[in-house]
């Protein structure tokens, strides 16, 4: 299979546009959701209802000085935000956002996305280690401590879906739900999945590596200017990917009546992202050991039982 360089550049530009635009919208949305849940307005000044506020903030961040602490491990410190962000560009490749809106149909697309999702933790660890800051290090080590606790239930969720759809291809999985979304058959699995992606995207109530009130900003405490905004970009892009995956695995992807495919995709996707924001602005943070308890003693058994029951039903 050969792809011309021009196509690759076009795809890269397209994906960059999605990543950038998504971050702009999500940051705005987050601030609006937070504002209204707090009886506030959120940003109102730049653009209509503050729509351009994120852009203004981004430009401000671009103009700031990027500080590298003297004691930091310079290569790792510089590498960390890149390691965090780059996998996203690859992970976006097999995501089908519409009937034809897909960069590359890959028969192991799901595996690719899940595997690349792991690299986010590496970025956090590098930042935590490279900053040479105790708060950052605690944040980084927390991220590593939690990875197993949520990845296994997450994989069990995905395995169940693969079993039902009989394919690793995201496109095929979405198409398999033509007659009924998987959320109708697997509501419990959907809940488990939502909890695990909240963990994966480091969102409250599981934002241990950031932990504003304990670790101040955790792994990115030492980052300023562009380094900080790259982490920000990465966080919101991971949310995008995780939500897109959820919409494909459980909500039938782009399929829906009346509206065109991509619109349905985005509606479902942003609905799930809104859910994550809703969590963040409602719940207190768990403690790290309680999160491990949740992962190993609640999510894992439930996902496993669900997997076995599904397997049994499918075998009959």
């Amino acid at each position, binding site marked *: 299979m050969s792809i011309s360089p021009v196509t690759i550049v076009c795809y890269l530009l397209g994906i960059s546009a999605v990543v950038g635009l998504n971050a702009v919208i999500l940051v705005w949305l987050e601030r609006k959701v937070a504002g209204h849940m707090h009886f506030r307005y959120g940003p109102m000044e730049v653009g209509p209802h503050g729509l351009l506020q994120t852009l203004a903030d981004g430009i401000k961040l671009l103009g700031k000085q990027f500080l590298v602490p003297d004691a930091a491990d310079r290569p790792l410190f510089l590498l960390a935000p890149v390691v965090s962000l780059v996998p996203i560009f690859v992970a976006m490749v097999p995501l089908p956002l519409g009937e034809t809106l897909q960069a590359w149909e890959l028969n192991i697309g799901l595996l690719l996305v899940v595997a690349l999702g792991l690299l986010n933790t590496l970025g956090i660890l590098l930042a935590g280690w490279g900053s040479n800051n105790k708060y950052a290090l605690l944040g980084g*080590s927390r991220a590593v401590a939690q990875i197993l606790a949520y990845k296994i239930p997450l994989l069990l969720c995905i395995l169940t879906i693969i079993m039902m759809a009989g394919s690793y291809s995201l496109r095929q999985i979405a198409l398999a739900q033509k007659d009924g979304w998987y959320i109708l058959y697997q509501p419990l699995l959907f809940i488990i999945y939502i909890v695990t992606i909240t963990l994966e995207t480091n969102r409250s109530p599981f934002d241990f590596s950031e932990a504003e009130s304990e670790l101040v900003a955790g792994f990115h405490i030492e980052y300023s200017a562009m380094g900080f905004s790259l982490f920000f970009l990465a966080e919101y892009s991971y949310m995008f990917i995780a939500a897109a995956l959820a919409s494909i695995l459980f909500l039938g992807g782009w399929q829906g009546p009346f509206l065109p495919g991509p619109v349905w995709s985005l509606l479902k996707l942003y609905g799930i992202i809104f859910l994550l924001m809703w969590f963040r602005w409602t719940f207190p*943070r768990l403690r790290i050991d309680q999160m491990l308890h949740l992962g190993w003693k609640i999510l894992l058994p439930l996902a496993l039982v669900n997997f076995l029951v599904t397997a049994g039903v499918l075998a009959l």
Partner: protein
Amino acid sequence: MSAPPTYSLESTDNGNFLLNLGPQHPGTHGVLRVVLQMDGEYILAADPVLGYGHRMQEKIAENMTYLQALPYVCRMDYLGAMSYSLAWVCAVEKLCSFEVPERAVHVRVMACELNRIASHLLWWGAYLLDLGAFTPFLQAFADREQILDLLEYITGSRLTYCYFRFGGLAADVDDVFLRRVEDFVTGFRQRLPRYHDLVTGNVIFHHRSKDVGVILPFEAAGYGVTGPCLRGSGFAYDVRKCEPYSGYDRFEFAVPAEQEGDCLARYNVRMAEMEQSLAIIEQAVATIPDGPYRARVPRVIRPPAGEVAMAVETPRGELVIFMVSDGSTRPCRVKFRVPSFANLSIFARLARGQLLADALAILGSLDMVIPEVDR
């Protein structure tokens, strides 16, 4: 036993490290610095370092006339400033044996209880902020704002009120204020269930606060813990009941207490206290008499020589103003026994062996105001 903290900068070879919590850290609620010796996420020893906001309030008070010191007293605890003003004016009134008109007594109680609710609301939000939830903070602010509006309506100021005067009040209250207070009490009663829905029943909150930071009853006495922190450990000690001042014996209210002594118990005590404060306010509004709001007192306060200890239950605990007068226009010696100071002194004991996250939850649940600790 409180041994001196045994951290040292050199002992990093066994994997321990020192963590500077503050003086600029959102979890310490002000310029408090806690030096933590950590083993991973576990705290081996904690050493609070105070004094970043030290202003020598006692010396200031000794160098001023009784009236001049009044505005300064509020500055210590800016969240419960009414109680501090009350303690100061009551101490001087006790020394000079001034009578306070009935109307002023009612307004004083009303203002102090409104201030207590405002303070507890802010604590409620800030505590949840320590636990990582943001919305409660601003939800509490929405209601606290109404209280501040009410207090601003009568005092002209939102935090450091300076409203009480020796023998009464600086200005009278009108019927509009009383109606608005009544409306607030009804409205806030209706909104309280939301607070319980959002936080009290929340399973994550339960896990984070139950069995965390247990203050044992005998420890409480050793450290002189008072206020809601003490009442969470099973003692129903409340100065308003034990040594009624400013007419508190005229109002019916309960002193809520819990047995467990953990963060959740302290939380529950404060939530119940807000309801009791509402009841007190309601009674005060219903029974407020007409009449003068300020007794005639000499223009220059010159109390007879003597000493007085005035205890007041502030939102954070027992405040004692110990004052020695030598018969001149300035106090000879003033000691502020502030509740946060004693409550914070137990923190090092509570934090030992805890996770960092729990230590911050404990610190938050003690509800200290750092300018009050530092004075």
